[in-house]
């Protein structure tokens, strides 16, 4: 028998500042809470305030800086502030997408942490009425030699696959990198893209008083309590004991939830909807109440927690409100539609209960066992959350690194082999072969072709979305402003390369402790650099997530602001990928024509010389746009057989990647004025294209007319990579073995 009176007494007990501190509220925040409330909170109220004011839910350290991002262009239907961003893709359809991190849980329990990261981001997208059509993930792990890295990779990959494969949404692209800076804090960022009709988009906002609050999905258990708070603090050694706060995912239930929600959304039953993600029932009900009302003036909610479907007996109001059990949704229904909704969820054998009503009071009132256990105004929870202007210092500029001061290697072939097989460049086949890339039957291009961006057809049409995720933490660490620009520009470049018109991005800003002014400086400058690129490229941010406190025992991760970019392809007959280069094709470099930068912050410098120094290559945003437009025009005109952007490892690695993807060699003739090291320089705003010999002159003439540099760099053919006769002469098979071999050898090694 549950002792209800004991639970109620505990729930209603007045709390003090020490208790506030245990909940992660500092003295100032505690004072703020007591002032807003006009009294001290009880336990339930304190729990609710503490999660709503956590970094994870309130963005209290980043909010004022995030406002620097442009969030609109002619395609944007919904920018940041809802569950996900929405863009117009023509024909009455919309793409809905967002990226989100699950870093802390994935370090503690990699399989479930990564799996529930995928589940959560899917819910953000289908909550809005979209059928999810693609998943992407950006992963960063510690040094491969670190004792935990291998098991973390295995667990995270299995978790992503286990969830995405079962739910039946293809995982089409991603990136995986390794660096000792992530030894204590791995990054698991997952992005979902969905497709909806513009007249069937659902929002968290707009609920009006007097309507039933409907709970659907899995039962509520004790898992994940305080997950949002955990994601708002640093780790220290031994925090793996937090395992019970990591949620457990059930992709089967998620699949049913997707189908049931989309089926219900086809009727006119739902007034507002919000998934239960971080801080579960608390944040979902607060967000719907706060953004409720016909003009967004806010409404109240009253819920009877005894009606919440529960997995265990004896759960307290505190636990029910803070549980992060997965696969749950909260809706506000129109009153006459309860039966319609119940019927849909019955079909899928999912729990569905009316647990309360929206009210006019502007208050959140919660009852358990007939007693009131919470009665607080809604507005302060969301709107009065702290909004800090954290002190920050300008990151130090790195000294220039003169290319001439870098010694030439004895054997360029060995260098190329080493770069192509280094952990960041090596093939990630071992990972993406564990992901179903083809379910839903619309994957035109995925990780399978090692390409620039995935291409996913819009079902039943000749249109497609191009999708990419990008970040080069080396550059951001070297210069957050320039590195921030580069992150956005690279996404723009990857989408343009396949022939897509870039439309918008979602961002996932991963940094260390914002209370450290140096870390805060990186956050501020990276955001400002990204914002400048977004403005110049007309490539706004429509959704995103901030993950701070990625820091263990005072050591922060490298600054890692990841973006997920989405572009539109109007005609699938006019795309180009890494595949398609034929023997005899000419290799042409297309570039902005700016002088070659140095090797600062390059992969060459780090992998070959073991040095992480120097400024990053600069992005010329105006020219970036011009080169991208030009390259896209070549793709549209059908003039290129294969295309690749120049990034890690410079021109030579880009050319090698095209060769490996096509199984055809190349004879490269780089004019050796000065050091050949220039071909390892990571020149921005550049592409390499394979063009049939009869069209090469046309391509170069078009470039000249457009004021863009284009130059022949070699010819495809044979089965080796040959540079300037004998500088490099490597059989493709040897390069392939090195490139493909590293990850499986690493994962299968026994030590």
């Amino acid at each position, binding site marked *: 028998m549950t002792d209800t009176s004991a639970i109620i007494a505990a729930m209603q007990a007045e709390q003090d500042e020490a208790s506030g501190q245990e909940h992660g509220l500092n003295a100032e925040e505690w004072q703020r809470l007591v002032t807003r409330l006009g009294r001290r909170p009880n336990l339930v109220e304190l729990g609710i305030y503490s999660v709503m004011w956590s970094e994870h839910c309130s963005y209290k350290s980043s909010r004022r800086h995030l406002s620097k991002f442009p969030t609109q262009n002619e395609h944007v239907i919904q920018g940041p502030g809802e569950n996900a961003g929405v863009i117009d893709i023509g024909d009455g359809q919309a793409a809905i997408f967002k990226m989100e991190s699950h870093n802390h849980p994935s370090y503690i329990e990699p399989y479930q942490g990564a799996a529930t990261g995928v589940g959560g981001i899917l819910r953000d997208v289908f909550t809005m009425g979209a059928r999810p059509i693609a998943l992407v993930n950006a992963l960063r792990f510690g040094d491969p030699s670190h004792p935990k890295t291998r098991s973390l990779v295995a667990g995270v990959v*299995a978790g992503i*696959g*286990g969830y995405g*494969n*079962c*739910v*039946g949404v293809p995982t089409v692209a991603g990136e995986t990198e390794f660096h000792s800076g992530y030894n204590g804090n791995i990054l698991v960022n997952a992005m979902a893209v969905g497709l909806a009709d513009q007249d069937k988009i659902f929002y968290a906002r707009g609920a009006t008083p007097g309507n039933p609050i409907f709970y659907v999905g899995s039962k509520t258990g004790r898992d994940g309590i305080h997950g949002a708070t955990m994601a708002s603090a640093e780790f220290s050694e031994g925090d793996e004991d937090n395992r019970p706060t990591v949620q457990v995912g*059930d*992709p*089967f*239930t998620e*699949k*049913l939830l997707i189908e049931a929600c989309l089926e219900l959304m086809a009727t006119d039953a739902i007034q507002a909807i919000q998934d239960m993600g971080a801080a579960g029932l608390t944040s979902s009900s607060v967000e719907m109440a706060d953004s409720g009302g016909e003009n967004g003036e806010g409404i109240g909610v009253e819920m009877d927690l005894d009606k919440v479907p529960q997995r265990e007996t004896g759960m307290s109001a505190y636990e029910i409100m803070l549980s992060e059990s997965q696969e749950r949704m909260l809706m506000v229904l129109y009153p006459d539609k309860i039966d319609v909704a119940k019927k849909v969820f019955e*079909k*899928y*054998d999912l729990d569905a209960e009316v647990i309360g009503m929206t009210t006019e009071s502007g208050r959140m009132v919660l009852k358990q066992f007939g007693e009131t256990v919470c009665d607080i105004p809604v507005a302060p929870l969301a709107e009065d959350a702290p909004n800090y202007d954290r002190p920050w210092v300008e990151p130090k500029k790195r000294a220039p690194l003169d290319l001439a001061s870098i010694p030439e290697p004895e054997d360029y072939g060995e260098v190329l082999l080493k770069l192509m097989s280094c952990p960041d460049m090596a093939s990630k086949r071992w990972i*993406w*072969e*564990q*992901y*179903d*890339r*083809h*379910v*839903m*039957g*619309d*994957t*035109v*291009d*995925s990780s*399978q*072709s090692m390409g620039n961006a995935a291409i996913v*057809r819009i079902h039943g049409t000749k249109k497609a979305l191009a999708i990419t995720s990008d970040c080069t933490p080396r550059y951001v660490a070297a210069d957050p402003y320039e590195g921030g620009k580069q992150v956005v520009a690279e996404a723009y470049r990857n989408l343009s390369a396949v022939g897509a018109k870039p439309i918008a991005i979602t961002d996932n800003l991963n940094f260390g402790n914002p209370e450290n002014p140096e870390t805060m400086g990186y956050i501020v400058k990276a955001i400002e650099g990204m914002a400048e690129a977004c403005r110049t490229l007309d490539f706004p941010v429509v959704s995103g997530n901030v993950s701070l406190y990625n820091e263990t025992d005072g050591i922060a991760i490298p600054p890692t602001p990841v973006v997920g970019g989405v572009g539109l392809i109007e005609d*699938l007959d006019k795309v180009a990928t890494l595949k398609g280069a034929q023997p005899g094709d000419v290799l042409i470099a297309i570039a902005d024509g700016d002088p070659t930068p140095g090797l600062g912050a390059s992969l060459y410098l780090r992998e070959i010389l073991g040095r992480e120094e120097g400024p990053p290559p600069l992005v010329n945003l105006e020219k970036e746009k011009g080169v991208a437009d030009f390259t896209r025009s070549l793709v549209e005109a059908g003039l290129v057989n294969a295309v690749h952007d120049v990034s890690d490892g410079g021109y030579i690695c880009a050319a090698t990647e095209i060769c490996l993807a096509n199984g055809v060699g190349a004879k490269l003739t780089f004019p050796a004025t000065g050091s050949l090291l220039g071909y390892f320089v990571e020149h921005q705003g550049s592409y390499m294209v394979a063009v049939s010999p009869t069209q090469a002159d046309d391509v170069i003439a078009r470039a000249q007319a457009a004021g863009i540099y284009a130059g022949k760099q070699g010819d495809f053919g044979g089965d080796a990579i040959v540079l300037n006769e004998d500088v490099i002469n490597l059989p493709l098979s040897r390069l392939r073995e090195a490139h493909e071999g590293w990850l499986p050898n690493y994962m299968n090694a026994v030590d």
Partner: protein
Amino acid sequence: MKTAVIVFPGSNCDRDAEVALRQATGQDPTMVWHKDGTIPDGTDLVMVPGGFSYGDYLRCGAMAANSPVIAQLKDHAARGGYILGVCNGFQILCETGLLPGALMRNMSLDFVCRPERLKIETANSAFTSAYAGRSDITVPIAHHDGNYVADDATLDRLEGEGHVVFRYVDNPNGSARNIAGVISENGRVLGMMPHPERAIGGHEGGTDGLGMFESLMAAA
């Protein structure tokens, strides 16, 4: 040709099957919900699609094999109707006993998704006649439990009677004797792990799956 696709909770290749059948036959297949749906009279082909019916809980296909719709599926088989089970559909057909053997966890223990070369063991079937003259086709696989097992006597019989339809050229999952697909004694029920419905053109899967639907059109 009249077709139907069974939909279980957790099926996720049902739409892929629907698209492939529509493309092949020019008509919409009937989508049959496992709980209360009906396989229409006169249906020529029933497709049991891939996915994770019941989340693969208990054992892949085990719970779906006990779902209400299975009685109708067995009746359809008894009437000599065509049944194509792909991936989870193959697992379900084995669990119902409509096909011999079982699918175990892949030898590598990992999920595997990749284009796979399949040797055509017989073009003398209602499912493969269009492949006559071809030694192999490439069709995507995507599964965690595709490791086909049966006792030696069963395997000998399947091989002896020509009921092994496809074999893997590079066995991706440890299947006995590289078996990728088998057919029933009457030649009407085929189960296979690779996904022909994901190889019908216009996407990364290629076009080698089209032959299967063309063969069925010719047979029905």
